[in-house]
């Protein structure tokens, strides 16, 4: 964020706001009736058996929770920004874990399977996504140049391509390629079929990103380059694309993160990636939720790593641009 030098009174320390916060949270907690949850169990010494605590228990639980909630927010308000971020993150994660805890998951089962999920599932997901994004990158580059050219033939093919692959659900494309190509007498394995579908689909989205990136380079760069006698290809390669790449990199990173999760769709044709393993392993022992949550956590961690990498790359390009 841009630094703001004007200091305002902290909203969370105004009595009116604190009162409002308390009332709203109290009403919300009463409304959701948390007597029968873990919170009710904590308050057993006061309200007795949650099942029979009735309206009194409902209000007592809501009151205690509202007090804790409001006090917590006011307290966090005193901290410097950095610590606020850390504490809020920790609290949200704690709530999240609490939520899972209520499912009564079998940790033993998760521990038994998680290594296989990582060595087989995460590995497959990563390499399928990486190969697909690399192919998509090339497709997008070609597609963008074709869309910007005056060649009607190239433009027609490129625009049909982007329209088709952006217009169909990815799941449909996966099926079409895996089940459709063999009809033409070309049997294709699950992994190549999945990679093909992902690359074609993301290539279509990225074509538009690349086209916008190339078009963001001022017209004068074209004119200067062309007026020096540089041919179209040379102008693209040495003048336009090197300037467009820093513009293209951040949204491409986003696409990669999105693809990582969309790669779960190729589980339907039996690629042994995270989602596929979660479903098959979970079904065998009737522990669906355990495996689904494990898979979710793995996806989440992967994206967090990728986000960190992406912000690094972006910072590098920004430094280069400010040089």
């Amino acid at each position: 964020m841009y630094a703001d030098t004007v200091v305002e009174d902290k909203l969370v320390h105004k009595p009116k706001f604190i009162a409002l916060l308390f009332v709203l949270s109290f009403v919300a907690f009463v409304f959701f009736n948390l007597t029968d949850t873990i919170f009710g169990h904590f308050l057993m010494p006061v309200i007795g058996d949650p099942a029979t605590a009735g309206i009194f228990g409902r209000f007592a639980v809501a009151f205690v929770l509202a007090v804790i909630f409001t006090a917590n927010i006011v307290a966090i308000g005193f901290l410097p920004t950095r610590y606020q971020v850390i504490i809020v993150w920790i609290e949200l994660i704690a709530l999240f874990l609490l939520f899972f805890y209520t499912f009564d998951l079998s940790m033993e089962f998760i521990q038994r399977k998680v290594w296989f999920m990582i060595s087989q599932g995460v590995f497959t997901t990563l390499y399928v996504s990486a190969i697909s994004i690399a192919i998509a990158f090339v497709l997008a580059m070609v597609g963008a140049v074709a869309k910007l050219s005056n060649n009607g033939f190239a433009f027609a093919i490129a625009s049909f391509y982007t329209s088709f692959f952006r217009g169909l659900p990815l799941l449909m494309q996966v099926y079409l390629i895996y089940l459709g190509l063999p009809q033409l007498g070309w049997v294709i394995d699950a992994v190549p079929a999945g990679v093909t579908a992902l690359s074609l689909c993301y290539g279509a989205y990225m074509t538009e990103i690349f086209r916008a990136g190339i078009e963001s380079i001022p017209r004068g760069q074209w004119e200067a380059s062309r007026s020096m006698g540089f041919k179209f290809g040379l102008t693209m390669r040495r003048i336009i694309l090197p300037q467009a790449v820093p513009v293209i990199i951040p949204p491409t990173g986003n696409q990669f993160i999105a693809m990582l999760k969309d790669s779960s769709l190729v589980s339907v044709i039996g690629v042994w990636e995270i989602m596929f393993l979660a479903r098959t392993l979970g079904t065998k022992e009737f522990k669906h939720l355990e495996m689904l949550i494990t898979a979710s956590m793995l996806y989440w961690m992967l994206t967090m790593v990728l986000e960190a990498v992406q912000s690094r790359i972006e910072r590098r390009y920004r430094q280069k641009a400010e040089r």
Partner: protein
Amino acid sequence: MSENAVEAQDGRGDVIVSMQGVSKWFGEFQVLKDINLELHRGEKIVICGPSGSGKSTLIRCLNRLEAHQQGTVMVDGIELHDHMSNVEMVRREVGMVFQSFNLFPHLTVMENCTSGPLWVHKMPKAEAEEIAMKFLERVKIPEQAHKYPMQLSGGQQQRVAIARSLCMNPKIMLFDEPTSALDPEMVSEVLDTMTDLANTGMTMMCVTHEMGFARAVADQVVFMDEGEIVERNEPNAFFTAPKSTRTKTFLSQILQH
């Protein structure tokens, strides 16, 4: 050397650029109306005229950044038409300097200057750098060679742009309002560079409203209005005794301040 080069009678060089009956439309709107203009080898022509009169379009027709629709444009004996090879031949002989410099921001000053010789003329790197250095010295900024364009002032950037064009060893230099985007204190350093260049005998065509430069350097001043060449004369006569009323009005507006 062109085949149909004709030594002019009055001691000027042969005709290197000729536009005959050139017209151009943007959709319905006619930007250039039957333009006839000749430029002799070594000659310097300044083009002026009100905004929107078609000056940029005219000068851009000479290296086919714009395509004309009627008439013929010949540059050094090569006719400009849709044929790409012709266009590329002409572009190698014609240098162009833009109002907004258009240096390549991802390349250093040195790389900007060597790009043409390296990529088009396939010159060895050492030789290209030697040439680049020679022209950077000519425009008086050899010490900036390893900076990036964004680190230079506007005036310095425009001088690099001139050096970059000169590295291609052009026969003709085109300038489209090279000083209009500059802060006033930087205008003179660019005009000085252009005057130096004119003194080396370069053939130049320059769109500018810098009347001092026109007086000092131009052999001919051309006045354009609404896509037509209204008047063409030697600078002295042009400024002291303009013939058409349109020219008079324009000059009085420009010279007011």
